[in-house]
């Protein structure tokens, strides 16, 4: 009986030894998480429109390595982005910076929204005014009647 129990336990151990929790791919998951958050907003420079986070290109891997190093040395997100922008220009940012050349981009939708609202109001107002003046007189009514009859017959 003891032999059986021992064998059973040994078997459990053997099985248990296989059920290892996989180690995270990255050395430091916290750093990696921050890397992904930053890299998702950066552009892979050699790809056909992919983010730095997802790209498998060589340069992308090199740049991710650089960003990782910068994170470990305690740089802030803004400093890391500045590091890349000073080397590659604004092109590397997927979130365009707010500067005079991008004011139209960032404030455009808001302007469009306001413009749309103003358009809406003016259409409704115009329609309200029209409502008050849209009354047919006898001549117009007769004309309308004739037109209606003509439409019915030509169908």
């Amino acid at each position, binding site marked *: 009986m003891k032999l059986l129990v021992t064998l059973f336990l040994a078997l459990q151990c053997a099985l248990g030894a296989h059920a290892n929790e996989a180690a995270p791919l990255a050395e430091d998951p916290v750093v990696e998480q921050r890397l992904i958050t930053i890299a998702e907003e950066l552009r892979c420079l050699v790809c056909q429109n992919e983010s730095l986070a997802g790209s498998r290109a060589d340069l992308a891997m090199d740049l991710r390595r650089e960003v990782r190093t910068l994170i470990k040395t305690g740089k802030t997100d803004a400093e890391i982005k500045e590091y890349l922008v000073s080397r590659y220009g604004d092109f590397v940012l*997927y979130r365009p910076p707010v500067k005079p050349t991008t004011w139209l981009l960032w404030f455009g939708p808001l302007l*469009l929204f306001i413009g749309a609202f103003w358009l809406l109001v003016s259409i409704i107002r115009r329609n309200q005014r029209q409502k008050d003046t849209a009354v047919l007189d006898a001549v117009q009514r007769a004309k309308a009647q004739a037109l209606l009859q003509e439409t019915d017959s030509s169908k």
Partner: protein
Amino acid sequence: MIPELGHFALILALPVAAALGILSLAGGQTGRADWMALARPGAQALWWLTAFSFGCLTYAFYTNDFSVMYVAQHSNSKLPDLYRVSAVWGGHEGSLLLWLLMLTGWMMAVSIFSRQLPDVMVSRVLGVLGLIAVGFLLFMLITSNPFVRLSDIPADGRDLNPLLQDPGLVFHPPMLYMGYVGLAIPFAFSIAALLNGRLDAAWARWTRPWATAAWVCLTIGIALGSWWAYYELGWGGWWFWDPVENASFLPWLVGTALIHSLAVTEKRGLFRSWTIMLSLIAFSLSLLGTFLVRSGVLTSVHAFATDPKRGVFILLFLAVVVGGSLILFAMRSGKVRAGGSFSLVSRETFLLVNNVLLTTAAAAVLLGTLYPLIIDSLNLGKLSVGPPYFNAVFAPIMTPVLFFMVIGSYARWKNDTVAELTKRLRPVAIVSVLLGCTLPLLAGAWSALVAMGLTLSIWIVLASFVQMYRQFKDTANWKSTPISYWGMHVAHIGIAVCVIGITMVKGYETEKDVRMTIGDTVDVGGYTFRLTGIQQVPGPNYNADRGTVDLIKGDRVLRTLHPEKRTYFSSTMPMTEAAIDTSLTRDVYVSLGEKLEGDGKPAWAMRVYHKPFISWIWLGCFLMAIGGGMAALDKRYRKKVAAKLSLKDIKGVAA
């Protein structure tokens, strides 16, 4: 021989399309019945010629005729049969032929399903479409001929891009093109109306099913594209705001505004100018999309191989078609003045509000898409506008749309009151807010964005169900309710379902990037994944590393997944075939990465995702499409047929 016949068919199609375009339009303008009579047979002849040409190209692909340059560039003898056919539209030239096939197909449909339209209208519509076909035929014959032969015949083709060797490619482009091209039909109807000077409720009733049908195709096409990107690209994303994705989304947004504007024009004769403008813009955006994808002005994974000559041609075509239509609009819009009125609180107002919002959203997306181009043209440097911008800008504009959607469907035409609406909607609103704000707690962490998304979605679903129930209960004969009524609710529920999917996925998805050896496990989203083996598996035109991963919940193995990493013979870039287990409440997604170097047991990089409710995104789109289909098939669009039958019946009885 066959490719030459295909080529000849296209050459022949050119004078046919030109004759159709010129004579039908002239016939409509002058009233000549003999010219107008050419419209329907002309359109059908064009379809047969194009279909024949397409068949020849497909034959060349199927029989591995590598003497045809296009086949050699996009196919391979080891390519499986199904992909040999879909490779026909895998490149620029063939996809143009597909475009043309869709255009002539729609023209064929218009020629058949238009018995109740006056001949003048039909000949004008088909005439406009014929001229558009002329443009595409010229484009193909001059710059993008798929039938060009190679004098040096290669032993084997270059193979279809491995990314495209997938069932998604078989359906996504044809569906998408059906949508893009389908928007040419309301475009043509609008041109016809502007030429005619007559724009009444009847015109709106004729145009509406075509616009809706095109919208349905576009919805399915975009949904398929998103779904395909999700399972094929291996990183779990499903929308990237890539310029080409935006190029398809823009006509969809405007198309949605169009079908709703048509509703108002049909019902009340209002918003005529807006309806015309929207239909012109929708198709213009389709053409703009064609330009962006094929001219090389923007960087995108979708972009076709470029040639400056092609870009110039499309730009000219764009200028003529869009410029011409806008000039006509400027000249004739005075005659299209709206009649009738509506009060501030009415269905018209809410439809107008949402249409304005949809168009604003489209304008914002267009701005973001074109901004890098604009800045570069002004020599102000190079910019990138990516997902962070679009997400920041799009969501705030679309959120009110979801809110007003419900109010619009509840409000009465012409005149309603705030008090009345509040009374009817208050219970729904309260329940939506309660559920929307408490459900996130059940799912895990609470977040304001998730709460808002859920509240709005539940608001839409509840309101629709309440309305449908009332229709069922309060109407004397609910079966006589037109099918388009139910279709509207199905489509609206579809949007809500889609929003739930997006909200839940964005709010609660989790992933882990791990290093696994055989036997290792990883826990994600309440599931355990165990790697039990990796084998080398050969495929028809690739070699693959195939992993075996057990999906375990608790202590039960639910399923075995097989993620693959394929190396195609024709390409050096390895492709990931993710393994996905889909269910209504979540997807689990396993992606096999590279083999990792190191001493000890061999290990692989694996990425595991848990994506709750992601399938709701595409389910919602599917519901939208079904709803649209129900609306397009409404009986009132087929009235003439019904009238014919009853007349016959009467005659029969009399006899």
